[in-house]
Structures are given as structure tokens and as C-alpha cells.
């Protein structure tokens, strides 16, 4: 080995290894478990992108136009698609994400019907998120500061509970929120049930009254003394939490892949997605594309 080649090796060894992308990590972990990624059939993959990105099945022309294209090219094709009849002038990619976010933030016309102005404000902010690449962090700050949110949850404890559910993806724990909350002493009988099972686990909805909390009469909500009582302090606490970005990753993963993020099996994938998400300026479009072009999304599915 010459001195020159030894020097090159030394330089190469000193350079930091290139970080593996989420896609590479997913493939690696699947191969470690003795399985390989089987790519979905062309028409199946096109159909998946069309439904997830435009809210409707693809036409035969779409399938033919994307023959031989890569997943990223398919993603770009449907993301850029112009208005379709069912979106009423809206770009389909934006429209379908608004539809799904309406489900998460519960601003459907059935529940929010007395506050039309608030719904429109909220929808406009979400539209910026998907159409303009508006920062998800800034969006969350706006949402938590909005008059809508403050009016709905007048006490700090209420705000903490709702914030945890909407932006950290889980219920607050007893030691994180004072017991005198909006439910006046009524607490979940089994608080260990994850919020993600709220719709399927009937026991989640069972509340019991705890006399030790409030006595025999209804108590008033107490403020959250541990971390501050003002909205601004709670908001900064939320946005500074590492769970904030992780919850966003989990939510979009569930939306696109169709099941919860397999944290134990893909230990580094979420960290990689979070890192990229923050580096992209909290751009949810980057996050959606990264998940939707990964091996987890593009592989064939169970029923086919």
C-alpha cells in the first residue's frame, strides 16, 4: 500500500458515514428478518398513489402514462394533478389531505357547525400546509393560539389535555395534568388504554368519579401549576417536546401505510424521518413523499 492510497483510506475513514435514508433502513430491517421487499404490481401501486393523493381511483390513461415510472415519479404525477370533479376546484392533493385532517382535528360540519368562521380559518391554514409547504410547527403554534382553541378549552388543564391528544398523539398522563380538569373529577377508569384504541376499545369510554379529587360536589378546574398556566407556556412546552415531530411522523405513517408505526422493529426509521422532517423546515409534503416512496408503502399488500 502506497503512502498516497493509505492517505486516501485515512481520509475516507475520517469522513462521517452517509446517513441511511428511511427507505434504506426499512429494507435493511426487513432483510434482517429474513424477508425481502416485493414491489407491488404496477397497476396496484398506481392505484395506491391515486387514491392516497387524489382521493379517487386512477383512470386507465393514468395507469398507461406511468408505465415504467419510478415511485417518486408516480408520486409527483399525482401530487401535481389538477382539479378533479369531486374536488370542486381544489388541487386533489390538497383536497384529500384536508379531508383527512378534518378527521384528525374534528372540524367536520357535524361538530363545528356553530363556528363557521373558525372552520374556514383552520382550513385555510391547513391549505397553506399542503399547497405552500407552510411549516407544520408554525401551523401548530397558530392552532394552539387561535381563538377557537382558547374558547373551546378555557382552562390550562383543558388546553393541555387537548394539545396532547392533537399534537403529541397521546393522552396526557395523570402527573402531567392536574386532576381537576374539564371533567370535574370524572376520570377514565382504565387510563392505560392508548388513545389510538379509543374507537375500538369500548372500555376506553368508561369514566368513574373520584371523590378524592373534588369531594362530593363538583369542583372547578385548577390551573396547571407545574408547567405554567398561560397558553404561551403550554404551547412552547408542546413545540419543544421531541414527541411533537414524532407524533407527526406517526400520524402520516398511519395515514399512508395504514397501520401504526412499528417502532420496535424499525428503531431508526422514525428518527431518520424526524431528522429529515425538521431539516426540511417542518414541511409535511417532504414527510408524505418520503413515507409514500419507501419500501413499506410500495410493497405488495396482503389481499392481493
Amino acid at each position, binding site marked *: 500500500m502506497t503512502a498516497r492510497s493509505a492517505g486516501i483510506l485515512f481520509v475516507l475513514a475520517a469522513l462521517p458515514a452517509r446517513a441511511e435514508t428511511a427507505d434504506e433502513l426499512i429494507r435493511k430491517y426487513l432483510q434482517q428478518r429474513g424477508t425481502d421487499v416485493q414491489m407491488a404490481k404496477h397497476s396496484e401501486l398506481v*392505484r395506491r398513489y391515486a387514491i392516497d393523493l387524489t382521493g379517487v381511483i386512477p*383512470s386507465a390513461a393514468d395507469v398507461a402514462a406511468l408505465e415504467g415510472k419510478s415511485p417518486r415519479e408516480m408520486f409527483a404525477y399525482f401530487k401535481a394533478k389538477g382539479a378533479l370533479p369531486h374536488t370542486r376546484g381544489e388541487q386533489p392533493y390538497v383536497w384529500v389531505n384536508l379531508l383527512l385532517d378534518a378527521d384528525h382535528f374534528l372540524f367536520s360540519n357535524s361538530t363545528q357547525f356553530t363556528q363557521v368562521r373558525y372552520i374556514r380559518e383552520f382550513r385555510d391554514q391547513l391549505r397553506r400546509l399542503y399547497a405552500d409547504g407552510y411549516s407544520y410547527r408554525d401551523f401548530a403554534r397558530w392552532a394552539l393560539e387561535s381563538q377557537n382553541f382558547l374558547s373551546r378549552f378555557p382552562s390550562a388543564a383543558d388546553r393541555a389535555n387537548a394539545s396532547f391528544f392533537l399534537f403529541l398523539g397521546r393522552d396526557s398522563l395523570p402527573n402531567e395534568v392536574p386532576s381537576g380538569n374539564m371533567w370535574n373529577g370524572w376520570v377514565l377508569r382504565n387510563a392505560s388504554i392508548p388513545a389510538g384504541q379509543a374507537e375500538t376499545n369500548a372500555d376506553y369510554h368508561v369514566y368513574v368519579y373520584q371523590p378524592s379529587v373534588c369531594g362530593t360536589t363538583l369542583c372547578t378546574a385548577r390551573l396547571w401549576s407545574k408547567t405554567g398556566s398561560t397558553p404561551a407556556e403550554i404551547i412552547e412546552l408542546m413545540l419543544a417536546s421531541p414527541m411533537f415531530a414524532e407524533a407527526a411522523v406517526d400520524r402520516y405513517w398511519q395515514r399512508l401505510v395504514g397501520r401504526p408505526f412499528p417502532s420496535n*422493529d424499525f428503531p431508526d426509521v422514525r428518527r431518520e424521518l424526524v431528522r429529515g422532517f425538521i431539516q426540511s423546515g417542518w414541511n409535511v409534503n417532504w414527510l408524505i413523499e418520503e413515507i409514500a416512496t419507501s419500501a413499506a408503502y410500495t410493497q405488495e399488500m*396482503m*389481499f392481493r
Partner: protein
Amino acid sequence: MNARTHLAAFSAALLSCSGGSSMATLGSNGPVPATGDVQPGPGNFSTDPRDKAAPVDRTLSFYYGPMKLMPAEVMLYSVASFTGHAFGTFDFTAPDPAARAFADAGNTQGSMYRHCPFFGGCMEHRIPLGRTSFMGTGWVIELERAVVEACNDRAVFQMFPNNRTPDAATLAVDVVRHQYLRAFGEQPSDADLQLSMAYMQSHLAAPELTGISALESAGRGHCRALLTTNRFLFY
């Protein structure tokens, strides 16, 4: 059981529940009309290489991959895209003046929905009062009705070749191919075509709907069959 036989069994079971005795024979090996390029031989159910691939157990891999049911709204728009049926306009992301009026009016005791009108809904309920559906959990009865109506509506013809009622010159195989192309974006495989033609033949022999031609009746039934397959509902 590989994926395609699973689909066949699913469709047969589903149709035998909903369509009467003539549909129950879907999975059986009856005579197949010699139309199009369907040429089944003895012991050679399919000539499509995709159907001959060795079955691979991918259970482990599937655990990490997609398994999604179409959300209710997407299902409706996709059915509309396939059949041309107009379901009317609705938008879960837009304020609904009628719903607002309902909430404001209430009764003499006031509206039961008044206490949770803001951002976040009723957090203590998780499923807010008054909400009729979540994404992916549309009312089954409504979706069932939508699918049936979309295929049986006389005013829509996108499910048939040339967007018109099939006439004497229309071949059943063309109806099947056209519907596959619209529903899945691709031609049916040989196994798919074999199954569909058996279905069409049984319906041509004993039409389910009266007042229309046997081919139109069979075509509408086949439309409904495609819309209720796993292949259409899951993606």
C-alpha cells in the same frame, strides 16, 4: 390458498349472499362461452403467467406494508368514477349551513350539541356527538345502497362500452373487459376473465333484473360484483 383463489372464494361467498341462486354457481366450473381470447383447457384454468407464480408466504413482510380500506368518501367518488353515477355534493371539510341551523335551533331545552362546538370537538367523547361518520367508517348501509344504486341506475352507462346500453352486437366479454379497465385500470388476467365470464353466462341464462336486456342485467350485476371485491375496496 393463494391470493386469486381467495378473491374468487370471497366474491362467490359475497354474491351467493346477495344475489340469489343463480349467483351461487359463480365459483363452479360451468361451461365457458368461447368469446374473446378465453381458451381454457382441461386442468389449465389459467394461461396467465401471473397466475402461475409460486405462492410465497410473505406474512412477515406484509406486517409492515399497506393494508388499507378505502375511506367512505373515497369509495363514493371511486364508485362514481367507475359507473358515472352522480351521488350529489357533500364535503366534510366545509361548513354546512343546514347543520348549523339544526344546531342553533335545537328544541325547548336547547341543542344537545351546544356544549362542544369548537376546535377539537368533544374531547371527552372522542367520537363527537352528532358526527355521522369518520374517515373509513362510513355507514355500511349507506355505502351498500350507493353501490347497488350506482350499478342499477338506468341513467348511467360509463360501466358499459361506448357509454351506452349494450345492444345485440355487444359481446359479454367486451363488457367485462371494459369494466375491468375502468375499475382497475388494466385488463383482467385470464383467471379473472374466466371467472367473470362464468358469472356473465349464469346471468345471461337467468337475468336478475326485468325490463332490460339480459346482457345489461348481467353487466350491472358484474359491476356490483367488481365494486364489492377486496381488490376494489382495499388498496
